[in-house]
C-alpha cells in the first residue's frame, strides 16, 4: 500500500487536487448554498461586501 502510494505520488496528488477542484466547481454550480466559498465568507463575516 505504502509502495503504491509513493509510486508516481506527484501525479496522484495532482489528480487529487484537480479532482477536488472539479468537484468544488460542480458542487457550487448545482448547490450554491451548500458549499459556496462565498456563503462561508458571508457567514463568518471575513469579507463584507457593500
Amino acid at each position, binding site marked *: 500500500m505504502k509502495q503504491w502510494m509513493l509510486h508516481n505520488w506527484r*501525479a496522484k496528488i495532482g489528480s*487529487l487536487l484537480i*479532482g*477536488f*477542484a*472539479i*468537484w*468544488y466547481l460542480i458542487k*457550487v454550480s448545482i448547490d450554491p448554498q451548500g458549499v459556496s*466559498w462565498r456563503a462561508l465568507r458571508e457567514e463568518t463575516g471575513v469579507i463584507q461586501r457593500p
Partner: protein
Amino acid sequence: MNAVLEFFLRHFTDGLEILILSAVVYGAFLYLKGMRGTRIFMGVVVTLIGLQLISQIFDLRVLSWLLSSVSVFVAMALVVIFQPELRRVVADIASNPLFAGPGSKNANFDEIIETTVELSNRQMGAIIAIEREASLRVFSESGVRIDALFTKELMLTIFFPRTPLHDGGVIVHDDRVFAASCIFPVDKEESMDRAIGLRHRAAIGLTQETDAVVIVVSEETGSISLCRHGKLERGLKPAELRRRLTEMLLKDSDETVDAP
C-alpha cells in the same frame, strides 16, 4: 470525538465523489501519458480549472463570464488540435474485446516474419502496417491498391529499390496486401533521437493514431523494429520479433515491454 464522527458522516459522500473524480483524472493522466501534446492538453485544462476556481472563490464575475464564454471555443480548439489523439482513443475503445467484432485474422503470421527477416538480410528498407480493429483505409487511399495474397516474393518485389511502389508503406489486411506505397502520418516529436529515420517516425505516427502493428526494416542497417501504440522496439532479432508479434497479434496482450 463526536464532532469528528459527525463531520465524517456528513462529508462521507463528498469525499467519495472527490476520490472517484480523482481516480478518473489519474486514470486519464496515465492513459494520456506519453502521447503527443499531452503536456499542452493538461496545461490548458489545469489553467482553465484553476482560473474557474479562482473566479469562483473570489467572486470574480467578469473573469467567470469570460471563461464560460471562451470555454466552448477552447473545447472546439482542443478537439481540432488533438484530433489524432482522439482518433487513437476511439480506436482503443473499438479494439476493446467488449466492443470488438470478429476483427482481422493475421493468418500468414510465419510469412510476415519470414519476409521481414529476408528484407533485413537484403538491407531493403520496408514499412509494413498490419491492420487490426481500426481501419487503415484512409491511409491506403494515399497509395496504390494491390489486394493480393501476402507472399514473400510479392513483398520483396514491392520493396525492391527503384521500383515505383518501393517508397512508402504497405498495409496488410487479414492475409492480404491491401495497398502499397502508402503515406503514413509522421511523428514530429523533436525530442526524438535524430538517428531515427522517416520510416520509423512514420511507424510511430501511424501507431499513435491507430491500433495497427507496424514492422520497420531499416535501409541503412537492416535492423528490424516493431511499433505499437507509438512505442518503438528497435534492433529485434528474428526470435524476438516472433515472440513480440505473437504477443501483440495472437495473444493480444497489451504492451508490457517498453521500448529499450
